[in-house]
C-alpha cells in the first residue's frame, strides 16, 4: 500500500520561497497570482495493513515539524 503525505507551512507562517515563486510568475507575465505556498509531498511504500495512525505518528515524529508545518495524509 502507498501513502502520500503533504506537508505545508501552517497558515500565518510566512513562506519566503512561495513569495519568491509568486514574484517569478509575475515577472513571466502571469497576472493575478495572489499567493503561492510551497510545500512537499512524501510518498511512502508501506506494508499492507499499516494504519493511518502509524503514518500520523511518522508525521508527528519526523516528516513534519508541527511547530511550523501541518500535514495531510492520503492512503492508497
Amino acid at each position, binding site marked *: 500500500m502507498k501513502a502520500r503525505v503533504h506537508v505545508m507551512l501552517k497558515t500565518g507562517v*510566512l513562506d*519566503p520561497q512561495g513569495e*519568491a515563486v509568486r514574484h517569478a510568475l509575475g515577472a513571466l507575465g502571469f497576472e493575478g497570482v495572489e499567493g503561492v505556498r510551497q510545500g512537499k509531498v512524501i510518498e511512502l511504500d508501506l506494508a499492507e495493513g499499516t494504519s493511518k495512525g502509524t503514518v500520523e505518528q511518522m508525521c508527528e*515524529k*519526523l*516528516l513534519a*515539524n508541527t*511547530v*511550523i508545518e501541518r500535514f495531510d495524509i492520503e492512503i492508497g
Partner: protein
Amino acid sequence: MHAAVITFPGSNCDRDLAVAFENAGAKVTRVWHKDTSLPDGIDIVGIPGGFSFGDYLRCGAIAANSPICQSVVDFANKGGYAVGICNGFQVLTETGLLPGALMRNAGLKFICKSVGLSVETTDSPYTAGYAQGQEITVPVAHHDGNYTADADVIARLNGDARVAFRYADNPNGSDEAIAGILSANKRVLGMMPHPERCVDEAHGGTDGTALFRSLVDQLVTA
C-alpha cells in the same frame, strides 16, 4: 570542565567547536552520532554547525532523531548543559529542547558574513562573561536561520530573559531579530552565529572567547 562534541555526517564545525572548548581550558571528548550514550562525567554537550545529513527533509531533523540525540535530550532533561550552534541550534529546536523553528532566510540567500549581536542577558553561564547590552561581532553562515515562534513563545522568551543574543541588523528575518535563545533553566543555548569562529586573533576577531571562558569558569565552580 569536560565537554562532549558530537559529529554527524555533514557536520563541519565540530573540530572548531572542540578547539574552542579546549582553548578555554576544557577537556573534550568527541562523540559519533551512532553512539548511544554520552561519555560519563561530562558537564556539557556541544552540537556543532554544518549540514547534518545533508539538510535532508529539514535542517537538523534527521540528526535530532539519531541515537546520540536521545541521550542529549535525556541529559538536558536531567539538568545537563547543551549548546547548539547554527545547525546545532536547528537540531535543538527539532528535538524540542528549545522552542520555535529556524526557517529559510527571509531573503532566500545563504548569508556568510560577520554580524553585530547585542548580548541580551548576562544571566546564563554562556553570557556571564559579557556586559549587558554589549555589542559583539560574530560570523554567521546559514541558509535557514530565520527564527520563528508563535507570539506566546516569543513573549515567554522576552519575559524570562531567555533571549541570549539579538542581531543588531536583522540579516535573516528572525522574529524580533532573535539570534540565540536559552532554555527555561538557562542551561541549553541555541544560536545561529558561530562564536567558535571568533576565538583566535587569526580568525579576525575574538568576541566568542568570553562565551567559552565563562562556560568553563561557571561549570568548574558549579
